[in-house]
C-alpha cells in the first residue's frame, strides 16, 4: 500500500529533472555561443555618439557583474544557479533600474490567468464534445463539429490569432484587439474595469481555444471509441445501465485518466501558444514582455523570462501530476 508516496517521489524527481535540464539548456544557450552579450550591449549603447574608452571599460565591468559573467565558466555556472534560486536576475536594462523580477511579477498574473482560463475551458469543452462524438458516432452535428475543430487544430497559434485579429480588427470591429483593458482606465476593480478586462480577454482566449480544442476532441474521441469496447462498458450495457450513466461514469471517467496525463504533457506547448497569442493582441503578459525585451536588447529580462517560464511550466505539470491519483485509484494504492 505504498503506491502514493512512491508516486509522489517519482513525480517530484521528474520535476527536479525538468528544472535542472531546462536551466542547463538556458545556460548552455547563453554561454556556449560565440556571441558575448556584454559586447553586444556596449555596441548597442555606443551606436549613437562616441564614448570614451574609460567609460566603455567601466561599462564592460559593470555589465559583466550585472550579467553574472565574471570569472571562469564554472564560477559563472554556479553564479547562474544562485540567481535562479533566489529569483534575482538583476535590473532590467530597458526599464532601468526596475529589477527584472518586478517586471516579470507584474506580467505573470496576466499570463497565468489567461492560461488557466483558456486551458480549462478548452480541455473541458474538447473532452466533453470529443467524448460525445466518440459515444454517439452516428450524430451528424457532432461529426461536423469535429471537422471544424480539426480544421483549426493543425494551424499554429500565431496564424489563428492573426486571422482573428484581421476578422475582429478590420472586417468586423466589435471586439478590442489590443491590450489587457481599456487604456487609461483606473485599475479599481469596478464593474466597467472588470467588463473591460473580460472583453479584452475574449480574443486571446478564443485563439488559444480554437487551436487547442481539436487536439482534446480527437484524443477523447479515439479514447472513447476504444473504451466502449472494454469489457466493463459492454457489461454495463448488457446490464441495462442507463446510457447517460455509462457515458459519464464508465466511458468518460476512464478516458479522463490519460487525458489528464495528456494535459500535463502539453502544458509546455500551450504555454508557447499563450506567449505568441499575447504578443499578437498586445496582452500585457510574459509573452509580450519577452518579445519587447528581445527588441530592446534586454539580456537580463530575456534570460529571466526564460528561466521563470521553465520553472513555472514544470510547476504546473507537477500540480497536474499530483491531481492524477484523485482520478485513478490504481495509482493511489498499489
Amino acid at each position, binding site marked *: 500500500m505504498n503506491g502514493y508516496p512512491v508516486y509522489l517521489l517519482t513525480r517530484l524527481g521528474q520535476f527536479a529533472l525538468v528544472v535542472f535540464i531546462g536551466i542547463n539548456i538556458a545556460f548552455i544557450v547563453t554561454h556556449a555561443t560565440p556571441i558575448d552579450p556584454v559586447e553586444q550591449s556596449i555596441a548597442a549603447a555606443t551606436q549613437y555618439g562616441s564614448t570614451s574608452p574609460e567609460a566603455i571599460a567601466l561599462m564592460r565591468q559593470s555589465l559583466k557583474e550585472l550579467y553574472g559573467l565574471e570569472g571562469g565558466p564554472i564560477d559563472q555556472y554556479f553564479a547562474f544557479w544562485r540567481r535562479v534560486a533566489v529569483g534575482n536576475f538583476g535590473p532590467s536594462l530597458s526599464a532601468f533600474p526596475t529589477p527584472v523580477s518586478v517586471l516579470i511579477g507584474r506580467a505573470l498574473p496576466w499570463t497565468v490567468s489567461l492560461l488557466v482560463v483558456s486551458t480549462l475551458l478548452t480541455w473541458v469543452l474538447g473532452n466533453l464534445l470529443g467524448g460525445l462524438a466518440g459515444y454517439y458516432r452516428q450524430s451528424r452535428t457532432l461529426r461536423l463539429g469535429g471537422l471544424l475543430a480539426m480544421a483549426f487544430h493543425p494551424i499554429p497559434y500565431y496564424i489563428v490569432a492573426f486571422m482573428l485579429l484581421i476578422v475582429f480588427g478590420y472586417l468586423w470591429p466589435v471586439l478590442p484587439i489590443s491590450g489587457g483593458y481599456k487604456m487609461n482606465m483606473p485599475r479599481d476593480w469596478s464593474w466597467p474595469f472588470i467588463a473591460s478586462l473580460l472583453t479584452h480577454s475574449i480574443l486571446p482566449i478564443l485563439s488559444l481555444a480554437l487551436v487547442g480544442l481539436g487536439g482534446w476532441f480527437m484524443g477523447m474521441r479515439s479514447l472513447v471509441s476504444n473504451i466502449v469496447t472494454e*469489457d466493463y462498458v459492454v457489461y454495463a450495457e448488457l446490464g441495462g445501465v442507463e446510457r447517460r450513466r455509462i457515458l459519464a461514469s464508465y466511458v468518460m471517467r476512464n478516458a479522463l485518466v490519460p487525458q489528464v496525463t495528456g494535459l500535463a504533457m502539453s502544458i509546455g506547448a500551450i504555454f508557447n501558444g499563450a506567449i505568441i497569442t499575447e504578443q499578437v493582441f498586445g496582452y500585457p503578459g510574459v509573452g509580450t514582455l519577452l518579445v519587447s525585451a528581445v527588441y530592446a536588447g534586454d539580456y537580463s529580462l530575456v534570460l529571466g523570462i526564460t528561466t521563470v517560464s521553465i520553472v513555472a511550466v514544470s510547476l504546473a505539470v507537477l500540480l497536474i501530476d499530483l491531481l492524477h491519483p484523485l482520478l485513478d485509484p490504481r495509482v493511489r494504492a498499489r
Partner: protein
Amino acid sequence: MSEQVREPVLVVSDLRAYYRTSSFGVEREVRAVDDVSLSIEANEIYGLAGESSSGKTTLIKTIAAAIQPPLEVLAGSVVFNFSDRRVDIHAVDRRELAAIRWKHLSYIMQGSMNVLNPVRRVRHSFVDFAFRHIGKPMPEFLQVVRNHLQRLHLAPDVLDAYPHQLSGGMRQRVTIALATVCRPEFIIADEPTTALDVVVQKGVLAMIHEIQRELGSSLIFVTHDMSVHANLADRLGIMYAGRLVEEGRTADVFRSPRHPYTAHLIASLPRLGDTSPKKGLDGAPPNLANPPPGCRFHPRCPRASDICRRETPPMTWLAAGHRAACFHPEPEQAA
C-alpha cells in the same frame, strides 16, 4: 420429465447471425451462427460446447441482444417466456430491453476480469446495475446486497474495494453476485471460468451451481471445457463452424455421442486408467467467411460420403431428447 408444466423459458428458432464488414474495399461475411434452433426449460442448465470460433460466443451475444455492427441478425428469432411477459428480444425497444435486463435476464461475461469499472468502487456497480430493479431506498438496497453477498460467502466489505484490489477469483465471485442479486429467471454465462486457475475454477463453478439451484433460474453455460459440462450441465448442445450439430441430455451425449465431431470431442477427453494415445483431428476448423459446401464437418470427417459434400444435414431426432445433424450418425451405445 416428459410432461411439460410450462413452456420453455427460451426458444431460439432458425437463428442466423453474420459479421459483415467492408473496409478498404474488402468485403467480408463471416457466418458465425447459421440456422440454430434450441429451447431451454425453467430451472435447467444448458451447456453449450465447441472449439474456439465455432460461434458459441456469437450465439450467446445474439441471445442476449448484445448485437453491434458488424454483427447482424439476418433471420430467426429469440423469444423469452418470463413469468410476467413474453419477449421477442430482437423486436423490443431499448427501454423495454433495459427493463428486462438484470431483473429477468442477466449475464456473466467471458474474461470477467475486467467487467468491473476500474476507477469506481464495487458498490457503485451494484447500484448502477440493480438499484432500479430492487425498488427500495438506498440503505435498504445496500442491506439487500450485503445479505446476498453473505449468502454467497463473500465478505460485505468487498463493496468498498476497487476492482484492482481483488484477486481474479474474487472478482469473478463478485461478478456472479452482481449477476444474481436481482434473482433473474435466466442467466447467461459465457466462459466464466476460462481465465481462472483450476482450484479457483472449481469454487466458482460450485458457486454458480448453488445459486442457480437456489433461484431456480435457467442457465445457459458456454465453455469449450467438456469436463466442466459433464459436471454442471443438464443438457448439452455441441456447435461446430456456426451450426448446432448435436444436442441431448448430458449423460446421453457423453454415453453415446451421435455426431462424429462430438464423438471425437468426447474420445479425446482423458480418462483415469486410459493410457492409449489420443488422436487429433486432421485439418483445421473451416474459415467461416468461406465455409465448405454441404456438411461443414465433412473435410475432417472419417464417415463423410458424397451426400455430405453436397447437402447440409438437417437436425434429426435420433432418440428421445437427443438429436444430431448428420447423414451417417454413430450407432447408439447401450447404457
